[in-house]
């Protein structure tokens, strides 16, 4: 049994991870400022003696020190994500200061750090698939879209520097598009979240650009499994590991698939939104596929859930949410 501090615990990944940790017999302190996380995500663990929820900000160093001193490891998931609609400054600030704070405290108290990074860090790199040593291709600073990836790039670099210069034991995980129950219901949660919502309401699904951009999506149970393994294996210390599914799908295919799972043979309704309609400038990434050999070799991690299976489970969950919201209305 270990004591694990999870930042961003009330978020999508954080809540699943908290459950997984408790199932494996660990003690969990879940920190979240509830800016994007929801307390209801934690309903299955709140009240469990092995779980403690703390409402607070990851940038609050006094608070974090108190919690960190009771932890064997900090899993740092708290982050801002989509600067597409403004908020570039918050994204940079929360993400950079959050990890810096976590690292400073882990240096002080000697606990391990697991930092959640992102596939977005590979940016526009045209050379696929992305191995952990692939280069990061960022765009112009005048395009806000890059502030998320850049904040994570700085975060990763800080992890390495604290590891080299201060002896912090850390692991970096680069997640590739997680989805599943409790995903955020806005664009923050990814396109599948919006598409399911539209299909359930029989509204046109908005697709950015031509929809031919391809992504690999990872079911939350797999993301959680990879994270738990990384936390438990000594071999993961000092390493950066891609956690993702190699199954690729275009955004357009994803939309059609979701529509079919929800509405059967009915003709899908799609609304294409050109990037130029986004505020400011935007740059999309055409394809994004991880090389997952390291996760397999180091952690024995293989994602198990196919996109069809994962989507069906996610749709079931989201249907429940939409129906209960309608009942409230």
């Amino acid at each position, binding site marked *: 049994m270990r004591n694990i501090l999870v930042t961003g615990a009330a978020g999508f990944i954080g809540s699943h991870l908290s459950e997984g940790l408790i199932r494996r017999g660990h003690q969990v302190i879940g920190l979240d400022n509830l800016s994007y996380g929801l307390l209801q995500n934690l309903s299955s663990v709140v009240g469990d003696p092995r779980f403690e929820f703390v409402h607070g900000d990851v940038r609050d160093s006094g608070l974090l020190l108190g919690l960190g001193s009771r932890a064997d490891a900090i899993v740092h998931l708290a982050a801002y994500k989509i600067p597409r609609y403004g908020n570039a400054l918050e994204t940079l600030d929360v993400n950079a200061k959050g990890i810096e704070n976590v690292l400073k405290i882990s240096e002080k108290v000697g606990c391990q750090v697991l930092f959640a990074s992102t596939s977005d860090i590979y940016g526009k*790199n045209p050379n696929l698939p992305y191995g952990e*040593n692939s*280069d990061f291709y960022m765009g112009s*600073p005048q395009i806000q879209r890059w502030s998320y990836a850049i904040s994570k790039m*700085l975060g990763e670099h800080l992890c*390495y520097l604290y590891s080299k210069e201060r002896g912090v034991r850390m692991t970096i995980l680069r997640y590739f598009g997680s989805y599943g129950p409790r995903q955020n219901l806005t664009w923050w949660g990814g396109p599948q979240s919006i598409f399911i919502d539209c299909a359930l309401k029989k509204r046109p699904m908005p697709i950015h650009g031509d929809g031919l951009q391809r992504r690999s999506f990872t079911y939350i149970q797999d993301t959680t499994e990879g994270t738990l393994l990384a936390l438990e294996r000594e071999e993961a210390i000092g390493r*950066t590991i891609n956690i993702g599914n190699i199954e690729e799908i275009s955004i357009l295919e994803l939309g059609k698939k979701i529509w079919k799972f929800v509405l059967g043979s009915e003709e899908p309704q799609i609304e294409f939104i050109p990037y130029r309609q986004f505020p400011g400038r935007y740059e999309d990434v055409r394809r994004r596929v991880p090389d997952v050999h390291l996760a397999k070799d180091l952690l024995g991690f293989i994602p198990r859930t196919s996109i069809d299976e994962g989507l069906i489970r996610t749709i079931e969950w989201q249907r429940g949410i939409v129906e209960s919201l309608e009942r409230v209305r």
Partner: protein
Amino acid sequence: MKTALITGGAGFLGSHLSHALIEKGFKVISVDDLSHGNIENISDSLSSPCFEFYQRDVLDKKFLMEISREVDILVHFATYKIPREGNSLKTVEVNTRGTENVLEVAKERKISVIFGSTDDVYGKNPELPFSEESALVVGNSSSIRWSDAISKIYCEQLCFAYQEAYQVPINILRFSIIYGPRQRKDWWGGPQGVFIERALKREPIPIHGDGLQVRNFVYVSDVVEGILRVIEKEEIRGEVFNIGSPDQIRILDLAYQIWSLVGNSGKPEIEFIAYSDLCKDYEDVRVRDVDLTKAKYLLGYTPKIGIEEGLRGTIDWFRRNG
């Protein structure tokens, strides 16, 4: 009279800019902690009534806020550059925190910021030359070789985030390797400083890697001219500019050229230093060349001093300040 605040004001570039701004009728407030800057660099400005110098750290936000009451433009040059094993965290901290402080001051005082960045942000991008729109390509985040570039890329984003959120007018200047009188004589100042020092003593010249890497060198007076144009032209706020020169040179050839310009005969002995001796996982950039079209059209920036003339001026200064 307009007032400019320059951080890193006693550094190589900061001192030249201070001098030029005073000549143009500006009042200059210069801040430098003298960790790498040098008080002798500003000896000519210190006697001017239009010049104030403070030996302070750019991490001291309260102080920056206090002295910026009358400031019209903030030029942010204070930076750490070359991380070696052991001080990379300091590099990242000074660069990110320093820039954040400057932006906070600019937000409060409602003034524009000119941020001194580097063409190293283009990193390993294989497509040459680099225009301001080129991708910023960084190698493995585990290597301290990227500490400077990563922190500068972050700072550039932060600058525009402040512009977006608080309407702080921003200009980012990505400098090539700047050389000239008052430049540092160690690696911090670029290879040319070390080469001149060694050549003057007729000692072997140390070269990192094979010496076949190509770099862009720009003489300090040209850079200062570029910055003055940016300061004067209000209409170009919000733009990023490459400030370099057409002078591309192989590092090995630079060593040979310096060797003969100081008057030595024959060829220098070269002491090749493996990258692995610099830092673990060092990744070199083979060719770095910048596209100056934007600076030319929007600023009228045309570098005037060629590499030979510039090196002669620099060598003279090294001789006089040996």
